[in-house]
């Protein structure tokens, strides 16, 4: 009887391993399509803030190597600024966003035009006010990325934060 239980137990262990293998395999093609994202949200995934009070959180982002994005205050009127937003009715309100100063950047073929950009990693200080409860906030970062020779169309990525208002 014990032998049978052991065999059944082993069989179910293999079953679990096979399920994990199957689900991991199913992700492969999707990942290869997404690998071109210029900006990635790093952290925090979860914050706990006092309900009803303005609270500062620091959001960390990373830009893919070789690319830059316009700062929040680009120097040309036609360039698209980097902006962070939280949708209405999220249970969390963005009362203020403080962006880092851009670094000066010039394109090799146009050394006279100075651009204001972010590269590598950067942070945005967001001041939020949350109601009581657990809010899964799908905020957005809108940016427009370029390298030295070409620019990609403007894009908005989701910034998912679990905000707990206590």
């Amino acid at each position, binding site marked *: 009887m014990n032998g049978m239980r052991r065999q059944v137990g082993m069989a179910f262990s293999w*079953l679990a391993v096979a399920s994990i293998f*199957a689900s991991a395999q199913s992700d492969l093609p999707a990942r290869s399509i997404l690998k071109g994202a210029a900006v990635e949200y790093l952290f925090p995934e979860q914050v706990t803030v006092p309900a009803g009070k303005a609270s500062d959180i620091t959001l960390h982002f990373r830009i893919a190597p070789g690319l830059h994005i316009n700062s929040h205050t680009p120097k040309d009127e*036609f360039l698209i600024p980097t902006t962070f937003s939280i949708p209405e009715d999220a249970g969390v309100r963005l009362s203020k966003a403080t962006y880092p100063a851009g670094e000066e950047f010039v394109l090799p*073929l*146009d050394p006279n*035009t100075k651009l204001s950009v972010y590269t590598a990693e950067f942070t945005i200080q967001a001041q939020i006010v949350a109601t009581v409860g657990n809010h899964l906030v799908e905020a957005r970062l809108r940016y427009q990325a370029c390298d030295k020779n070409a620019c990609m*169309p403007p894009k908005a990525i989701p910034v998912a934060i679990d905000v707990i208002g206590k």
Partner: protein
Amino acid sequence: MKRNSIVITIVLFILATFAWAGWANWEYRKQAAEKALAATAQAELVPDTNGGMPQYVSPLKGKPAPTFTLEDLGGNKVSLASYKGKAVLINFWATWCGPCKIETPWLVELRSQYAAKGFEILGVSTDDLDRDDKQKLSDEKKDIARSAQQLKISYPVLIDGATLSTPYGGLDEMPTSFFVDRNGTVVAAQLGLTSKADIEANIKKALGE
């Protein structure tokens, strides 16, 4: 013993079913991803055998340029077909594109240099247009016109170029240019900022020189 065998057989059957389901799911997703990529006719960067920068290889090269009809800044319909018999450079650009601003003065000069030989440029803006909001749409058109004026663009500027994304290989980066010969065939394509000399060489190719 007989009961053990039955249980093991059932478990093995379940295991085999899961393994098959996982494999089938993976195959399905792989094929769907390949179809999606093929549908957008993605271009490739191919390493230069001489050790230089990777070369842009468009899947449209050697094929008829996809036809289109777009509005110009004055609201007139402009169709690629109406330029048959001319060599045409289709230059996709955007107001937010810094490298486009470096390239555009070269295009203006080259256009005036080769126009007499039957050469034209169509500057196709890929700026987003908000068709549902009349006021926004009007402002967006004005911005494109203002940017074109600042860049002293002397050739036709067409709008709503993002709608040509699929037939023209994704248009994932600006500027992107296609050089079309007098028969309407794409003879060369350029992705990103290259050089005035490269553009001129491709114009000559389109003119059959």
